[in-house]
């Protein structure tokens, strides 16, 4: 299973050499409104995307954005209702890292969003063999908390969330 994941990863790496498909978006340009003290800026999909796009893939020296695992169009957010939903797309249907990637996204959002937000991280429908099982794990608060008690898992998640050197 791990071997399969690696094989798939290499193909993914090759695809990503092509900037057409998975180009990295630049920094969000700062607008006049954002610099105005008075105007409130609501949390939007791009802001959520900026939070998660630079998460490192557990296996490759590439970000989730470069691997096209996360995309801005797959993020639904409502600031007034305090909800956010992120769908992510594993590189191949049998990717063994799907749970770990989902966990990293979840942890990043937990650390970066105000507590009032209710967050839902799930796999883009139809892109993974065990989609249902992974989604269920990610939605289970206790399981997520337990996973972060595990030193090894926490280490991997932290590596994914560390700024790239």
């Amino acid at each position, binding site marked *: 299973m791990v071997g399969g994941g690696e094989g798939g990863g290499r193909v993914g790496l090759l695809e990503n*050499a*092509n*900037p*057409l498909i998975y180009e990295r978006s630049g920094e969000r340009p700062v607008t006049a409104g954002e610099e105005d003290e008075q105007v409130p*800026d609501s949390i939007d999909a791009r802001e959520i995307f*900026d939070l998660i796009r630079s998460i490192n893939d557990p296996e490759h020296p590439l970000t989730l954005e470069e691997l096209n695992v996360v995309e801005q169009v797959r993020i639904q957010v409502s600031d007034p209702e305090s909800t956010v939903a992120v769908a992510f797309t594993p590189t191949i249907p049998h990717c063994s890292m799907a749970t770990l990637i989902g966990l990293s996204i979840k942890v990043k959002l937990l*650390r970066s969003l105000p507590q009032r937000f209710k967050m839902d991280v799930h796999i883009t429908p139809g892109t993974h063999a065990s989609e249902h099982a992974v989604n269920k794990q990610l939605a289970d608060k206790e399981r997520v908390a337990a996973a972060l008690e595990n*030193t090894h898992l926490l280490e991997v998640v*932290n*590596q994914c969330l560390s700024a790239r050197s």
Partner: protein
Amino acid sequence: MAAATALEEAAAPLDALCGLVQDFVMGQQEGPADQVAADVKSGVYTVLQVVEALGSSLENPEPRTRARGIQLLSRVLLQCHSLLLEKEVVHLILFYENRLKDHHLVIPSVLQGLRALSLSVALPPGLAVSVLKAIFQEVHVQSLLQVDRHTVFSIITNFMRSREEELKGLGADFTFGFIQVMDGEKDPRNLLVAFRIVHDLISKDYSLGPFVEELFEVTSCYFPIDFTPPPNDPYGIQRDDLILSLRAVLASTPRFAEFLLPLLIEKVDSEILSAKLDSLQTLNACCSVYGQKELKDFLPSLWASIRREVFQTASERVEAEGLAALHSLTACLSCSVLRADAEDLLDSFLSNILQDCRHHLCEPDMKLVWPSAKLLQAAAGASARACEHITSTVLPLLLEQFHKHSQSNQRRTILEMILGFLKLQQKWSYEDKDERPLTRFKDQLCSLVFMALTDPSTQLQLVGIRTLTVLGSQPDLLSSGDLELAVGHLYRLSFLEEDSESWVAALEASGTLTTLYPGAFSSHLLPKLAKELHKGKSDVAREDGLMKCSRHFCCLQALSAISTHPSIVRETLPLLLQRLCQANKGNVVTESSEVIAICQSLQQVAEKCQQDPESYWYFHETAIPCLFGLAVQASMPEKESSVLRKVLLEDEVLAALASVIGTATTHLSPELAAQSVTCIVPLFLDGNTSFLPENSFPSRFQPFQDGSSAQRRLVALLTAFVCSLPRNVEIPQLNQLMRELLEQSCCHSCPFASTAAAKCFAGLLNKQPPGQQLDEFLQLAVDTVETGLASGSSRNQAFVLLLWVTKALVLRYHPLSACLTTRLMGLLSDPELGPAAADGFSLLMSDCTDVLTRAGHADVRIMFRQRFFTDNVPALVQGFHAAPQDVKPNYLKGLSHVLNRLPKPVLLPELPTLLSLLLEALSCHDSVVQLSTLSCLQPLLLESPQIMSLHIDTLVTKFLTLSSSHSMAVRIAALQCMHALTRLPAPVLLPYKSQVIRALAKPLDDKKRLVRKEAVSARGEWFLLGSPGS
């Protein structure tokens, strides 16, 4: 008796010599060797006498003693080889050659002696060869110590430098001997010398005979270099030194090609990144000496390796080196001289590349298009022939693909590739128009570009605009019809939403293309723009106000964008000035924003003219009288009070006019500037309006002599003009002008006019050469300031004058500046002027945009900020401690301004001494002080975490408090400091971790996005502290 004394005197040094020799050889002391050498040098005794004194020790049966004896001789020779006579050299060489057969303990000293002799100029012909032969025969070099091996290499290097012809006489034996010497060498110090020798062997054309492959083997075995210098290496040899000197050897001759190329291919295929890079770079270097003959057999493998590296790239550097190597290979194949019967490999090589790449360009999923395009472009960029070969195949293919794909982003990718190939064309010039490969595709390319320009996707439009610019810069490619269409598109794009990327790009493209096709733009674009500008005036009522305003603005921007050619400037400038006159006519409601927009356009035109003196003078000569004329007219008192006219007198409009005047003056030559200044100064001093275009005014223009406040305001325009003049232009009636300016600067009816006068005075003062007149002006200024400060009514004006005069002097390091700065510091405790004085420090330290600028020829010393800091910060700190509580913030604020403007590298070493003050400043309620303090502390946290650790408690508390400040900038800076805190040692931070993480949850919900961003990154780092995997 006398004879005996003489004998004794002669014998005395010899006795001393014997003593010294004894001490060295038997006594094992090191000092005597240098003593003997010094004596020989100063002629106390000869080398022969030294040999005689050594006598028996040179033949002593005990090898250690012999070695010691020879060592002394060698050390003397090393220092005195220049004194040796030919006869002595011959004997010494014979002796040393003979000693090479001696015991191994003796050899190091013998080699030292030979090295000394190899430096001697008296060495007779033939002996160099004999020494080398003896060494090659008798010494097994690689069993010696590193130092001794180095000596052998030095001997060889010395002989190669001075006895090249003799060594060449040895033929290939020399090469063979050297190969044996070098074989197995491992020390990087020796390798650097050895590589140098091999390089010389090849480049100076020594005979390699049958030993080419051996020589290659003995050097290439080090490739690729794998060497990491030990820590604290005293020799300072870097990996790159070895790589480069080995590469110089390997790539020095085509004769290595048959051995080297297989090796390079093998190493490119290896898994090690550095080996790939080194191999590709070496291949690149080889291409400059190789020809088709050397490359022929290896081309398929080389291409396969490079292609693989670029297609499956894991590293951008490997990709870049691969492309560079392909470029060099193609260039090498393109310029090799061919024999008549040989086939040209370039065509078959390029066909290979095309065959492997072209189908990727046509794959519907476009996975490998970019790597393929990069490979093709690397090859095409190598020569005109390669470019033509590849372009003629690829362009039709890409043109077809463009039409096959329908999505904008796919089309954009294809157009970007086309653009890449078009840009390559610019590298080659074709004499014959029909030869140009692009001529055939011109129509297709144009229609494709126009499709891109009308596409809704901004990205595609942008590439389209860039492509249009590149097509336009191909000489004689576009027909006048194409140009008319292109100009039409650019006209349309110029009215897109302002600030959009396409709009900016279209204006830039118009500017570039205007320089090439002024005629097309003059006949197709200018009339449309002129009409649009005119329409803006007449259709006010019918159009929606906002829409008109923005179209109008776009039109002005377009006019200034195309003013890149002198002939166009002669059309656009009158249009803009005419528009300004209409605005002043008063029959239209003119917003000040519109006048400002016109001024901005005028200023951009002036900036574009700065490169061309003739255009620039045209601009100055046309615009300056017109602008002054309009302003003077507007300042005239009128019976029917027209509100409209007064638009020109508003602060912002005057500032905009002033900056046009400044920009149109700074680049004047001194002669022309002198011509202009004789019109403008009399206008203000004497009301001489004769040079203005319309000069019949209802009353006189007397801005200084009790003129109306409207007229006084125009001093701002005079300021812009005289403060932009070159320093050596003489200003007429200077004395009178300065006095009038001083007087006006204290006039309290109109702050705008008095500030303008103060700035003008300061600007002139800064440029005034030292001397009596300057001192007089200064005295006058100081008197005026003091009188003003002592009065009650014009204190503010006097303060402003003081501030500007101080600035003028600080910039030029004038001695009086210290005194004035102290006066300014005194005002910090002034109940009325204190806050203003604190803010004044900001003005002192910042760069002005209008007066006292380097562009305006002011005397600005580069280190003035550092100097101001060193001179005044101690006093400020002292003042702060001594000041009563209620004025302390003024000192802190002044200090903040000084610290803020100082370059960070200069500031950092000073900050620790100011640390306690900075920590205190964090509690100050002024947001300027808070912001400046935070921005000082942030780099300090990164640079000196140890010192900062001592204050962790204060820092955490204060930063967290400031992260909920009402000012956004302070919140951001405080959170950045929270982030920087994570650089402190973890044990210091961990006790605060949970508190900080809880506290930082609040700014995560800040209403401003920029604040949230900082909160996210700070909180993320705090989470990682002391956590596994960070």
